[in-house]
């Protein structure tokens, strides 16, 4: 069975992750309950005639995928697999608003065409002329992990040799207002916002796109190997420990084999208890968090994946993402644990090439 190498990555996020190297400059937000992605310059990446119909999520996905493929020196991948929680929600809103405002008349095609969840994967394929397998997973907070699992199985079994895998989600005004109403997003009165030590419910919402070029051959550009991953719909807090240890056992690993762990803490006091439970297993190794930089959204875990792979390649943990003061000289195996509101639980294991 072949291995699954991460040979290129691109990330558009609320931090300047597209233009700069691995988290060399970060801005930690404490005052905004929605943070927006820093948009790259699209003029060099997308023809103006095509860009005018594209929503933010599509553009972010195109930019991230272009960078990932360039790094891996892949012109056209064999397949494209995308994960998204809310898809092109901005165009969906425009289309539905037009339905209401115009009494179901005068409906224009563009917003409707662009409102489907697989628009991102479709537009990337159109741009590349990629006629291979193209699939989009819409599975809440395990959308990205579902895409990864599909790609991993295909690469290991040599059904495909290079797969572009990624995730994209965008914010949109009406949906954000609804999220505030139902307390998914933190209240203004909860300021200053903090992911660690938070005593309020809800999250800081955001958006972004991360794409990775996965191949079953090692290259100079390789970041890490995608060793294993597991997804589970729901867990109780008291089941977290056995979930993690069973995953490690299944992969013939012990807790002490892991060099660093990346947690998806998002500052929601009700559900960060899952990470507290998990962190007690790993109190001898560096612990990392990232959603104070990326914000929370259905595919924020793809940012965490980008962080973990970058740590393995650079062998450095930037100060801004350290949860504890434990130092380690080498990072051979990094484990990611993420969940959202106790559901969409995922474990992803990366290892040094």
């Amino acid at each position: 069975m072949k291995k699954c190498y991460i040979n290129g990555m691109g990330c558009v996020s609320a931090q300047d992750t597209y233009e700069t190297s691995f988290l060399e400059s970060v801005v930690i937000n404490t005052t905004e309950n929605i943070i927006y992605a820093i948009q790259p310059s699209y003029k060099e990446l997308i023809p103006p005639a095509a860009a005018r119909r594209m929503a933010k999520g599509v553009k972010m996905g195109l930019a991230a995928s272009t960078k990932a493929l360039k790094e891996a020196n892949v012109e056209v991948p064999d397949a494209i697999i995308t994960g998204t929680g809310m898809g092109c929600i901005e165009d969906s809103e425009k289309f539905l608003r037009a339905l209401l405002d115009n009494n179901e008349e005068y409906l224009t095609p563009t917003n409707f065409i662009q409102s489907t969840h697989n628009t991102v994967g479709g537009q990337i394929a159109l741009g590349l002329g990629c006629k291979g397998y193209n699939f989009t997973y819409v599975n809440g907070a395990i959308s990205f992990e579902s895409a990864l699992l599909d790609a991993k199985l295909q690469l290991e079994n040599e059904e495909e040799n290079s797969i572009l895998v990624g995730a994209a989600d965008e914010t949109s005004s009406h949906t954000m207002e609804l999220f505030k109403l139902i307390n998914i997003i933190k209240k203004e009165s909860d300021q200053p916002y903090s992911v660690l030590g938070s005593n309020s419910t809800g999250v800081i919402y955001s958006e972004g796109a991360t794409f990775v070029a996965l191949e079953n051959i090692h290259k100079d550009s390789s970041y890490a190997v995608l060793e294993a991953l597991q997804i589970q719909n729901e867990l109780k807090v008291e089941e977290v420990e056995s979930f993690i240890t069973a995953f490690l056992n299944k992969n013939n690993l012990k807790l002490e084999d892991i060099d660093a762990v990346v947690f998806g803490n998002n500052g929601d006091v009700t559900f960060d208890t899952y990470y507290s439970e998990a962190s007690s297993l790993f109190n001898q190794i560096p612990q990392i968090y990232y959603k104070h930089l990326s914000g929370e959204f259905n595919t924020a875990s793809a940012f965490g994946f980008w962080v973990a792979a970058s740590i393995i390649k650079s062998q450095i943990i930037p100060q801004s993402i350290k949860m504890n003061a434990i130092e380690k000289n080498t990072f051979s195996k990094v484990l990611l644990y993420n969940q959202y509101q106790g559901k969409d639980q995922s474990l992803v294991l990366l290892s040094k090439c």
Partner: protein
Amino acid sequence: MEALKQELKAKIIEALNLEDISIEDINDNDPLFGEGLGLDSIDALELIVLLDKVYGIRLADPKQGKAIFESVETMAKYIEEHRTK
């Protein structure tokens, strides 16, 4: 007629999200499709909806579209003759 052409150019830019184009960039007789603005079939549908929504014109025969949407000049002329609002 001149005011209508200016209004039409603004509405085309807005409806088709022509980000880098201003009213001054569109000449009255520039072809809208192919060369000129380089619009495509999806834009044609957007323009049909625009005629209906803003000027109350329903194109009964789609074949008419080719002549009507030739340029801003031809569109404005057709609108002036057939508008119901």
